[in-house]
């Protein structure tokens, strides 16, 4: 295992900049997710780390070792693709043994390590099967075993769960996390799925247009997005248009002035973001309002029952305001009907200027 450092990494394809002077430091055994929409450069970055694409400029370090110009077969990385990419003509054990054979590991040791790797992914009992005899989830576990069996310096995962159905995805995901922690693997995980990124990664790097918009722990990024893009991409938010009106003050189009607690690192200053779960509804002024309470009047347009929560969609002078109210049997909050005018309130510190 080693740390991974990317320095000013750039790559263009036919005049289009895909990755743009990207910097990133990963510590040993860290699990980092590149999260972004398709075409944001996350897969290209992964391919450059693997050696399958050559950067135009910049450097890639595994620990102290500069691997920027090394071909893939000299980097000692492990790679898992979305489409598994198993060798169809080799058995499960043959697939897993491949990396060790390339390293000229002895026969007895190879057998032993293949067996251990397959046990780690609970596939030892299917060692003699061919890939086509396995289900998608099983194939992906074999692909994982194949990538970790030779103790790579970096484990690279390119949307490894996207081809699996929802239930299996959650299962393989937690298995992946457990394995990564047990073996202390420095792992780069590329995904467009925010839930995946949030639930497995130590840190998330949100990418857009070839750059990292923000990098941090999932809860940091969720609670304090640096830009409108990040807030839009990760979770759900209400975006109130308006303009900054002095320090800590934001003026809505209606003329109402609201307070806010935080300014995004890459804020443009024309949007106030509030998460739906941070808003409380009431008839008239909220009963127990904290000191920094901000309140607006809005009309209920839709009420959607969504199992564990109820979603209210309100109209605030032409802007949609979404509010989530958790369902539970501990307290019975008021219910509101369509067409009703209600007061929506939140704390200034949960509002972010972006």
């Amino acid at each position, binding site marked *: 295992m080693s740390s991974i450092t990317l320095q000013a990494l750039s790559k263009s394809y036919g005049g289009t900049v895909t990755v743009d002077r990207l910097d990133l430091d990963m510590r040993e055994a860290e699990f980092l997710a590149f999260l972004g929409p398709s075409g944001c450069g996350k897969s290209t970055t992964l391919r450059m780390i693997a050696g399958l694409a050559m950067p135009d400029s910049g450097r890639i370090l595994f620990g102290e070792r500069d691997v920027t110009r090394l071909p*893939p077969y000299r980097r000692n990385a492990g*790679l898992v693709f979305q489409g598994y990419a198993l*060798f169809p003509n080799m058995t499960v054990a043959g697939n897993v043994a491949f990396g060790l054979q390339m390293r000229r590991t002895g026969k007895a040791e190879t057998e032993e390590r293949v067996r251990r790797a397959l046990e780690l992914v609970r596939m030892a009992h299917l060692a003699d099967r061919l890939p086509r005899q396995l289900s998608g989830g099983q194939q992906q576990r074999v692909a994982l075993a194949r990538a970790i069996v030779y103790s790579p310096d970096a484990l690279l995962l390119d949307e490894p769960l996207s081809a699996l159905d929802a239930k299996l995805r959650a299962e393989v995901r937690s298995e992946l996390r457990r394995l990564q922690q047990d073996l202390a693997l420095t792992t780069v995980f590329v995904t467009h799925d925010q839930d995946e990124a949030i639930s497995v990664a130590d840190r998330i790097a949100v990418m857009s247009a070839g750059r990292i918009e923000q990098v941090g722990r999932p809860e940091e990024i969720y609670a304090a997005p640096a830009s409108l893009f990040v807030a839009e991409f990760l979770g759900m938010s209400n975006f109130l248009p308006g303009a900054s009106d002095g320090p800590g003050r934001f003026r809505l189009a209606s003329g109402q002035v609201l307070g806010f607690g935080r300014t995004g690192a890459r804020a443009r200053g024309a949007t106030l973001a509030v998460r739906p779960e941070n808003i409380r509804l009431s008839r008239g002024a909220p009963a127990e309002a904290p000191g920094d309470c901000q309140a607006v009047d809005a009309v209920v347009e839709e009420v959607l029952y969504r199992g564990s929560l109820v979603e209210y969609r309100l109209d605030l002078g032409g802007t949609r305001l979404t509010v989530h109210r958790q369902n539970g049997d501990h307290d019975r909050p008021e219910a509101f009907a369509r067409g009703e005018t209600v007061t929506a309130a939140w704390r200034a510190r949960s509002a972010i200027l972006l």
Partner: protein
Amino acid sequence: MRPFPRLADRSFPLAMGTLAIAAFALLVLPLATVAWVSFFEGKIISFPPSGYTLDWYRAAWEMPRFRDGLQTSLRVGLVATAVSLATGVPAALFLARTRFPGRAAIQSVLLGPLIVPGIVAGVALYMFMIETEIATGLQTAQTFGGLCLGHSLIALPWTVRLVTAQLVGMDRQAEEAAAVMGARPLTVFWRVTLPAIRPGLVAGGLFSFVISFVDLEKSLFLVGPGTTTLPIAIINYLEWSVDPTIAAVATAQIAVISAVMIVTDRFFKLTRAF
């Protein structure tokens, strides 16, 4: 409520079945007839036969022209197959995986022998060889080498076509995965690419052999003394006499091709290449 299925519901499969049987009969009947005739007793082919015999097979085998022809055809077929694979696989790799100006043109030229009538190609090749000989003094026309060259040319498009189809359909991520796991380019080729395109390789080799084995038009111009192929020997014999010997030879030829196909199919399901 419809107590009985409409007529069309029943007649459609019936029509399809009849057509299929008719098409199959059209393909098989001429071959079956040849095989049948080869066992006729009389020297003059007449229906119904006066009796059956295996003599014509012995007669054919005892004629040097057919025995040598078979041998030449087998040898040329094997050489053409080897040349077609050795040049067709790299060509297919290059065409399927690189983009360069003139790629489409090269592709068309490589597939040319499938489109140009064999007799035209034969004449062209013959003239080319003669001109080369005049210019360099190197004789290729009517030699075994020249014959192999011609047959390799008609075999090559099959290998290129069938291997290209496999390459286009293959999962390139498996190759990338192998490279990341530590395999050098040549190892990736041997252990990942080659197994993946094997259906195309086997089918390409098989077709190369069969195409060479049955070729008549090109060979007409390329054979010389001592390098007469089996189809040429058959044509030569037919010029002077028609008797069941020729049916026996043809049946043997069909048997060779069938054997090659059956053996190949046993090791390798041919349907996977198409």
